[in-house]
């Protein structure tokens, strides 16, 4: 499965209540590094669909969630387990570096 979009309205049901480990990519269309990392997240999502869901939230359209999680830099990728943030990765990184950051969730 590739990535899909979540919103302020669906964040609780899609992310906080997810039974599976889920990573949220906070992004915006005007952010060059976000656009750069997006296809890499699609690949990681597809290759690890049995272990982790990856979703994207547009911070322009969904300011409430971005504010709640005190986002000050994007792309910001937060891994949620049982409704809690268990890992934050900030900034666009090459695929091997992202996989290393997320190793414990991809194993």
């Amino acid at each position, binding site marked *: 499965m590739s990535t899909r979009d979540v919103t302020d309205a669906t964040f609780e049901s899609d992310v906080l209540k997810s039974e599976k480990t889920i990573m949220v990519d906070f992004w915006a269309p*005007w*952010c*060059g*590094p976000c656009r*750069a990392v997006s296809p890499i997240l699609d690949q990681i999502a597809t290759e690890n669909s049995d272990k982790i869901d990856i979703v994207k939230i547009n911070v322009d359209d969904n300011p409430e969630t971005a504010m709640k999680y005190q986002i*000050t*830099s994007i792309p910001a990728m937060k891994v949620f387990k049982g409704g809690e943030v268990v890992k934050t990765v900030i900034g666009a990184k090459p695929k091997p570096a992202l996989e290393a950051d997320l190793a414990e969730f991809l194993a």
Partner: protein
Amino acid sequence: MRQVIIIGSGPAGYTAAIYAARANLAPLVIASSVEFGGELMKTTEVENFPGFPEGVMGPDLMTKMQQQAERFGAEIVYDDVTALELDGPVRAVTLGNGDRHEAHAVIYATGSAYRKLGLPDEDRLSGYGVSWCATCDGAFFRQKTVAVVGGGDSAMEEATFLTRFADKVYLIHRSETFRASAAMLDRAKADPKIEFVTNAAVQHIYGGELVTGVGIVDTETGDERTLDVSGVFIAIGADPRTHLVHGALELTEQGTIAVEGRSSRTSVAGVFAAGDVVDPTYKQAITAAGSGCAAALDAQHYLEGLGDNVRQTAEPVSA
């Protein structure tokens, strides 16, 4: 084996690709996995690139250059170079995915990397208020107070851009003189939201989870004080990205790759360099593009000198 591999995808890399492709050299461009398009991907309006009287968005300009290179047969790979072998007639480039590509000539156009302040909490708070990209992160500082550190064009651009969101922007600079162009300095100085703090060096970045302030010292009196800010945007210049060629190519005293005169020829025949990685002075998109053009022409000349057997082994241009 390829004729030429171009490493880098900023204005220098893509211009080299356009010229090399049009010369039927079927270049392979290693564009980087997440920094393709180079520094202009992190800018907004570019107002000084000739041919765009109304200005052009940095990422749009880079997409156009990419498309122009592809139109003439350049092949672009979005990955990072992990190892380079430049000596000998066959140059080899190894990528993050493990692929290895070989070529007769290499054009090295990797640009430069943002300089850090070198303060203890800078890395820890990076992404939590410390930023190198106002266009990426500025919108998260609506109605806040932020600081920009630096005295060049990029510092002025960031400060002016941040006034769209922030209530107040401190422009902190070590001296009273600025490298910034008059146009950009005047615009920043005329902005009522920007307060210039000159002769000031940043000593501390404060904050637990998020940035809360910066500690500065007056470089003349030694007086220390704290500015309460939620964001610190660092724009103190960049260093040429040469780590892949240390020991392989000669560098200048400024740390850029040494080239012969106005050419792009490095200390190794068949290896050419262009853009910010050779330029300690101008560092403009248009000067980078110009040197990328020179590198492609130099590489073309070099390949012609190798003789006809090189041409016959060239891979066909992919459709």
